[in-house]
């Protein structure tokens, strides 16, 4: 209930009409009288109009950040499961620590390091790299997303790999596969469902992120869909557009979520077998 009612309210505002005098959104509580013209406009704008850039940018940023997360996160999870030995608990604790450090604190830390006289900027100047990190740089935003969300990837990856039956990999090795073949033909297919689930698990919040962007760049040239929602709902007089965007985002994320549920189910079936 707590969850369904708010979504109904969003739909009512999104598909309601606009008060002609005050330009304020008038919610339409009767679903049969919903008016889809405004929604249509926003959807067209997302597909071909002014919001298209934002939509495409959001997807590019999230995909880049996710790939980087996997490139960094997978070896770590793999190491923890396969080679950590006695140090496992210590490493696991150290990797869980960022989980409990407030997200804003972690962003604040980077804002300090990357600002004009920040330690990192000064350090990079030694190598002759003089870059304005906090001035609407897509690199900063993507790396910020990676930094922010990677802990949320490593733990599920660790859980997935930990559950694998590694005897099968050893069997592949015994039967003559080299380590790369065993990895590609046994480890990856066995953990695929878990990898997909973990990827979606961090893609979902990244798609709705607006604060990383706002803190690290604050420039319209790196805006993501979350920034638009936040703007339309909090700072503008067009809450209706905001509501339609929430619905558009939710539909998109719902698709991802159903993928997620499917792959977790697949995963539990695999481990049960």
């Amino acid at each position: 209930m707590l969850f369904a009612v708010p979504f109904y309210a969003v739909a009512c505002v999104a598909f309601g009409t606009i008060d002609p005098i005050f330009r304020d959104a008038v919610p339409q509580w009767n679903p049969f009288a919903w008016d889809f013209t405004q929604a249509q406009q926003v959807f067209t704008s997302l597909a071909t109009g002014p919001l298209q850039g934002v939509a495409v940018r959001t997807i590019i940023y999230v995909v880049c950040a996710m790939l980087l997360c996997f490139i960094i996160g997978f070896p770590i999870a793999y190491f923890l499961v396969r080679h950590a030995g006695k140090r496992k608990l210590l490493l696991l604790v150290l990797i869980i620590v960022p989980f409990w450090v407030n997200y804003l604190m972690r962003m604040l830390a980077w804002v300090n390091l990357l600002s004009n006289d920040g330690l990192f900027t000064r350090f990079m100047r030694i190598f002759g790299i003089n870059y304005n990190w906090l001035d609407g740089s897509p690199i900063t935003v993507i790396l910020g997303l990676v930094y922010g969300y990677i802990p949320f990837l490593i733990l599920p990856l660790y859980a997935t790999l930990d559950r694998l039956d590694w005897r099968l990999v050893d069997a592949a090795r015994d039967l003559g596969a080299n380590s790369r073949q065993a990895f590609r033909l046994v480890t990856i297919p066995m953990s695929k469902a878990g990898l997909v689930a973990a990827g979606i698990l961090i893609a979902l919040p990244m798609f709705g992120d607006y604060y990383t962007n706002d803190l690290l760049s604050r420039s319209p040239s790196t805006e993501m869909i979350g920034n638009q929602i936040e703007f339309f709902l909090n700072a503008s007089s067009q809450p209706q557009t905001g509501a339609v965007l929430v619905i558009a985002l939710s539909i998109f994320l719902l698709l991802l979520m159903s993928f997620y549920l499917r792959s977790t189910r697949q995963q539990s079936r695999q481990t049960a077998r």
Partner: protein
Amino acid sequence: MKRNKGSALVYIVWGYIIWSLVPVIIAVIYSFNDGRSRTVWQGFSLRWWFTDPYASVFYNPETRNAIINSLILAFVTLLVVTPLGITLAIGSQRIRGRGSNVVQGLTSAPLITPEIVVGAALLITFTRLFTAVPLGFAAQLLGNVTFSLASVVVIVRARLVSIGPSFEEAARDLGATRWQALRFVLLPMLWPSVMASLVVVFATVIDDFVITSFLSSGVNSETVPLRIYSSVKGGATPALNALATLLVLASFTVLIIGLLGLSTWRKRHGEQGGLRAALADVTQIES
């Protein structure tokens, strides 16, 4: 061969740990900076923590106000959400068959829904539909309850599954009423999961930014994360770092108390596991 590969990965792992922790440690260190800068070191001082009568964390009226708001919000949310979550978990566990899958899906949906969607939806609900709930503390409380309820349900339900029905059935066979079996057998056994969810909910609420921000009504419902967010971009002093450090300290204090409590409980009740199991208790929603 295998050893070699492992040792190459070691560097990645330690590199990651350094990358993930050092910036935060630097930010903490700079809260003790003697100058006004958050980026250039000018000597050690406690001025941003205690000594400065106006700008330090503990004396600035605005930051004090934010700290108090954050604590109140976290504790009231805990008071509401814990009993509610336990009841829901036990209730949903009793539903058999087809319905149980639906209920499970519905209760865990909020865990993977992005906060911005929940926040925006609740904002519209409280400004258009239930206008009786004013933005500010009341709306923030309801929002945080909605968002953190799922984690309580998931944690408690995992415990219920591992306990199984046999203890309750035994109590019933020995003559306990349904209520007595619940009160004297099941609830005491749930204690570790209750403790774990207290820790998790406290940390989520005290750290929450998106929902609390969407549902805030300005300065009188400003919490610590909101205050940090709004002052990062301005020319804030190291007091900002100190405030963020306090936030981190708060979650770690609660986490450590929770972990110690959990492992002593387990020891006393003869359950194995110690620290590792306790760690699994508080992180299980993620794994």
